[in-house]
């Protein structure tokens, strides 16, 4: 119930709707968008990428999107712009320079 309300309209809950105690359902922060924090934005070039996953493991914001191909091998798909804060660590760490930072267009 709590998730739904946050998900749909970010509405504040009334006291009667709150679970007893200071409880939050797991993983609800995905409904909080931090993408607007960016001043620079990472651009991912799939062609250069070797799927080493260093960007994925280095990202503090869990914002590198991955998927699994038919052989169940992990592929890097790109950036979750809803949450990426534009820190540029991925670009800086990428061994094949598949990610570059550009100015965020407002």
């Amino acid at each position, binding site marked *: 119930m709590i998730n739904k309300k946050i998900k749909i309209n970010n509405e*504040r*809950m*009334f*006291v009667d709707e*709150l*679970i*007893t*105690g*200071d*409880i*939050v*359902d*797991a993983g609800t922060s995905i409904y909080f968008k931090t993408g607007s924090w960016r001043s620079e934005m990472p651009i991912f070039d799939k062609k250069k990428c070797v799927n080493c996953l260093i960007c994925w493991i280095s990202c503090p914001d869990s914002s590198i999107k991955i998927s699994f191909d038919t052989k169940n091998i992990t592929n890097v798909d790109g950036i979750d712009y809803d949450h990426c804060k534009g820190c540029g660590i991925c670009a800086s760490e990428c061994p094949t320079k598949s990610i570059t930072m550009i100015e965020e267009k407002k």
Partner: protein
Amino acid sequence: MIKTVSKNGKIMAKTGNEAIAEAMRQIEPDVVAAYPITPATEIVQIFSQFVSDGIVKSKYIAVESEHSALSATIAASAAGSRAMTGTSSQGLCYMSEMLYIASGLRLPIVMTDVNRAISAPINIHADHSDTMSVRDSGWIQIYSENSQDAYDNIIQAVKIAERAMLPVIVTMDGFIISHCMEVVEVYRDIDVKKFVGIYKPKRYLLDIKNPYTLGSIDLQDYYFEHRYQLAKAVVDSKKIILDVAEEFKELFGREYDLCEKYMIDDAEIAMIVLGSTAGTIKDEIKKIREEGIKIGLLKIRIYRPFPVEQVVENLKNIKVVAVMDRSDSCSGAFSPLYSDVVSSLYSHGIIDIKVVNYIYGLGGREINNLHIKNICDDLNKILLGIEKQPYEVKYVNIRKK
């Protein structure tokens, strides 16, 4: 032979500490985390012997401080286990931060506090300064008059806590009760276990299939609602406390209420008190009554939530009341129990009653029948108009030139 109240009870000689340890053995909580402090040490000493002897299957954590004792107890409770602890005085002060957290997180922890004065000067004897210092922490506070009370209260506390989702502190006066061997009726293990039942929390951290976050940060948008929820729960717990008392009476025969009335129905003057001194006052009231003075006693058993309605109901026809505080607010604005009594009366429009605040027994200072008789004489003089109601706090049995 002394008759038992309960059908299957057994009369035993136990100190307050032994009675609490006995109740804890019967309750057999999953986790106990505690740190030694006089005069509460015996409780955990006896209990850890039960653990060492395999008499209970509880896990005992001998932590390195009271702060960690309550921290670990809170965590164990949040994890889904029935958790208990115990302390006194400085230990309770050191736990203070965690007390507020336990109630804020709505964890049904049961703790014993053996009432002892707060330093400085360091003193190991009874007064209520420790529990009074955390009276607004959102814990239910139950005061015990004697070892039997302490034993019965701790058993009821488990049920109250789990039903109200609030932590409960059961207190008894240091040494006066904790170290005094008295007659205690101990119930059968099986009956106590049946009464407290099995703890089934709705949500708990070890339920890893249903993970959640407990102890998040509230900003301006939610803190107020959560604290309101807590305050309401504490006030609403009065009904739960009475329900549990009713169930207790059914199974064990002993009656409990938020307050205990003693010869107060036709009284003109009365005393209000917490803890062991109630017994001494009862003893003296019996004698004073023989002189034809209509005096009664209202013993507050449940101090938090404060039994506002019962206090009003029982005092509304009284002319002069002595509120006996075993702690001092050092404020000039009267002491905790007095403030609660007077605001209860005033909020209900009862203003033509004379209420006098007596502070007694700090650091274990003796309070006996003679002192109580003197207070009664004071009240009687005010009743008869011989003396005026004093405008300041009166200190009992203090050496002053």
